[in-house]
């Protein structure tokens, strides 16, 4: 009787695995579309928080969205979890690019061992997902986002809707894992008809095509839910949905087969829901940011910090948490601007490891404590990490700052982007791309400026790159960037080429005066030349003979 029915422990485990698998899947997908390179560290000591033995960061916002969509349910037959990736241009046009589906079908594999084989296969599947997410067309699009478009995500649960992908979309299967309750399938349907993009750009006015602005236009978090660009989700949602529950049970198995599992408490969602991130979020507007930054010292390194650093003190608690929640975002966001060639808002570090990374640097490795590899660390981690030289709280604040940029995406990117676009436009032609939202103009223009003074004042010696001057530069500098040329392949893009070769000097031979003069000279010198040649007749003849 034992084989056919799943033991209750197995069942519980299986449900947990599936749930976390779903959450991790979403993380991988969204992170792969943030536009930056991801880097996490390997660690030989299990921390208990790295599900499936993979170091996948948990961006709290994303987890939150995913949990919201799932609403306590698990993928089942007819109820699939879908992550929709879409692109939205600065004019507000949007287009669905991909739908990633996590589905369950009825085909059960009763024989399979849950705690072992299923777990490992889920791990393998996540690795496959990591690989596949870099291979679909949307990846390259997402790496270039920020200027003319951004990538958004939306999670929904229920029936898969593929109609928005246009004709001829393709499907790639990432993999399947059989379990005693059904077979989990992970696949991606992606649009191949991207014609929309280029034609649109042409239809619209040149400015989009031409003007590149500001690089610090972030990689905002892709959005979530009804095509609502995700920003840091205004208080409303977050405030309401703070499931402080469920956490204590999030345990991640770290050992298998022969020995009893060493269960480390894996508090996934704890910290970032603890305190009103919404509050902080909302105040992404300048003043609060200012407040947050006043705490910042000279740290110029961006790192993914354990959220609970300094969680004790009232002062720090606030920004810390915020940062904690935002952490995952920043690393990604930072790199973006830098990569685009502009001056990064804040000196970005090349490949910031995960928080785990940071922790390791700060303190002696102590596996157990680092179970809080995610923002939601326990108090232990606080003391552990803070003694490190990380200067973390400051880093955290720094990151908050960055996140803010992204946050503006709230009014879809129109806001930020247009803000940036606005000024260059003024300098050029009156390219007034009509935006849906006109009031964005109110706020956004401030933001870049605000940021720089903030930056200037807040960053003490340590930070270099991101200091004041930059933002200004960003506004002034204009790149003629034709939409149809790929600037990251050719060393010289069409725009540069055009500019450089716009006014070539005249060919000297075409100039009449000079031509006339030399002509006369030529004529005069002819007799001399002839004489010389006649002298060498013999040589010439010999030469001619060799040719024959």
């Amino acid at each position, binding site marked *: 009787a034992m084989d056919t029915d799943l033991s209750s422990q197995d069942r519980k485990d299986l449900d947990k695995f599936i749930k976390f698998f779903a959450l991790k899947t979403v993380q991988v997908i969204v992170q792969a579309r943030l536009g930056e*390179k*991801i*880097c*996490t*560290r*390997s*660690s*030989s*000591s*299990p*921390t208990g928080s*790295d599900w499936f*033995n*993979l*170091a996948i960061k948990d961006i709290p916002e994303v987890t939150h969205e995913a949990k919201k969509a799932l609403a306590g349910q698990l993928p089942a037959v007819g109820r699939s979890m879908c992550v929709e990736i879409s692109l939205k241009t600065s004019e507000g046009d949007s287009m669905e690019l991909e739908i990633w589906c996590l589905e369950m079908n009825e085909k059960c594999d009763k024989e399979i061992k849950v705690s*072992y084989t299923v777990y*490992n*296969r889920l*791990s*393998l*599947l996540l*690795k*496959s997902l*990591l*690989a*596949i997410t*870099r*291979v*679909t067309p949307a*990846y*390259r699009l997402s*790496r270039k986002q920020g200027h003319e478009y951004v990538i958004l995500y939306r999670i929904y649960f229920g029936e898969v809707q593929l109609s928005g992908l246009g004709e001829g979309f393709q499907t*790639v*299967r*990432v*993999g*399947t894992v059989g379990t005693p309750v059904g077979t989990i399938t992970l696949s991606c349907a992606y649009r191949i008809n991207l014609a929309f993009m280029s034609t649109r750009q042409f239809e619209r006015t040149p400015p989009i095509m031409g003007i590149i602005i500001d690089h610090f236009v972030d990689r905002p978090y892709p959005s979530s839910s009804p095509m609502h660009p995700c920003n840091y989700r205004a208080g409303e949602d977050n405030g309401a949905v703070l499931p402080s529950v469920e956490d204590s049970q999030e345990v991640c198995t*770290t*050992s*298998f*087969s*022969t*020995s009893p599992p*060493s269960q480390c408490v894996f508090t996934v969602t704890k910290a970032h829901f603890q305190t009103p991130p919404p509050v902080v979020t909302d105040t992404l507007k300048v003043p609060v940011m200012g407040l947050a930054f006043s705490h910042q010292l000279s740290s110029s390194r961006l790192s993914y910090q354990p959220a609970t650093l300094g969680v004790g003190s009232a002062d720090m608690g606030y920004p810390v948490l915020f940062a904690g929640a935002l952490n995952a975002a920043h690393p990604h966001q930072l790199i973006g601007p830098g990569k685009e060639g502009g001056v990064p808002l804040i000196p970005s570090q090349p*490949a910031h*490891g*995960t928080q*785990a990374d940071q922790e390791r640097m700060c303190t002696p490795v102590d596996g157990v404590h680092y179970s809080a590899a995610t923002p939601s660390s326990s108090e232990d981690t606080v003391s552990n990490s803070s003694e490190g030289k990380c200067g973390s709280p400051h880093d955290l604040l720094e990151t908050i700052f960055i996140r803010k940029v992204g946050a503006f995406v709230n009014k879809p990117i129109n806001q930020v982007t247009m803000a940036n676009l606005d000024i260059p436009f003024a300098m050029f032609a009156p390219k007034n791309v009509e935006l849906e939202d006109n009031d964005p103009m109110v706020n956004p223009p401030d933001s870049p400026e605000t940021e720089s003074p903030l930056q200037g004042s807040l960053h003490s010696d340590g930070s270099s790159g991101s200091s004041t001057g930059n933002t200004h530069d960003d506004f002034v500098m204009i790149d003629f960037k034709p939409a149809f040329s790929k600037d990251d*392949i*050719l060393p010289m893009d069409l725009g540069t080429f055009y500019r450089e070769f716009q006014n070539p000097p005249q060919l000297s031979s075409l100039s009449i005066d000079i031509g006339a003069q030399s002509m006369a000279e030529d004529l005069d010198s002819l007799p001399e030349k002839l004489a010389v040649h006649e002298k060498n007749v013999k040589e010439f003849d010999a030469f001619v003979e060799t040719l024959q």
Partner: protein
Amino acid sequence: AMLAVLHTVLLHRSTGKFHYKKEGTYSIGTVGTQDVDCDFIDFAYVRVSSEELDRALRKAVGEFKDALRSSGSDGMGQISLEFYQKKKSRWPFSDECIPWELWTIKVNVVNLANEQERQICREKVGEKLCEKIINIVEVMNRHEYLPKMPTQSEVDNVFDTSLKDVQPYLYKISYQITDTLGTSVTTTMRRLIKDTLAL
């Protein structure tokens, strides 16, 4: 030539990754990953975050690349990544290496005349690589065979435990170059062929 090499490196990385797992005293460590952008091809891939592993692969590929280079400009070659298990034999026989999975990548060196061709090639190779990654993932998903998880005493027969942060299955890389005349110049690492034949 460079393209061919990177092509190879990429596929290697992607392949190896799936099997990596770290095990220590009955618990398994964490594998980190990182994105890598290719310098010469329009392609990005994910690899395991392990410098040691990266170095080992780069070294093997570097050798392959050199061999390809020295074989002439239009050479062909293939590089193989094999996963094997060791089986201890009694003295005086040496341990057997029993392969359980073999990946072979065939490579052609292409000469490109100008920048434009190179550009086109970059893109095409990038696309091809995308297809290859999908293929690899498909194969991985078949769950055809994986060695059983070993006990501690057996772990070295299944896994390469020499790396400090990750633990791939035991593997070896070998390659062979076919020069333009079509003859095969084998530069295999040790017992690959012998073992295969023995089976």
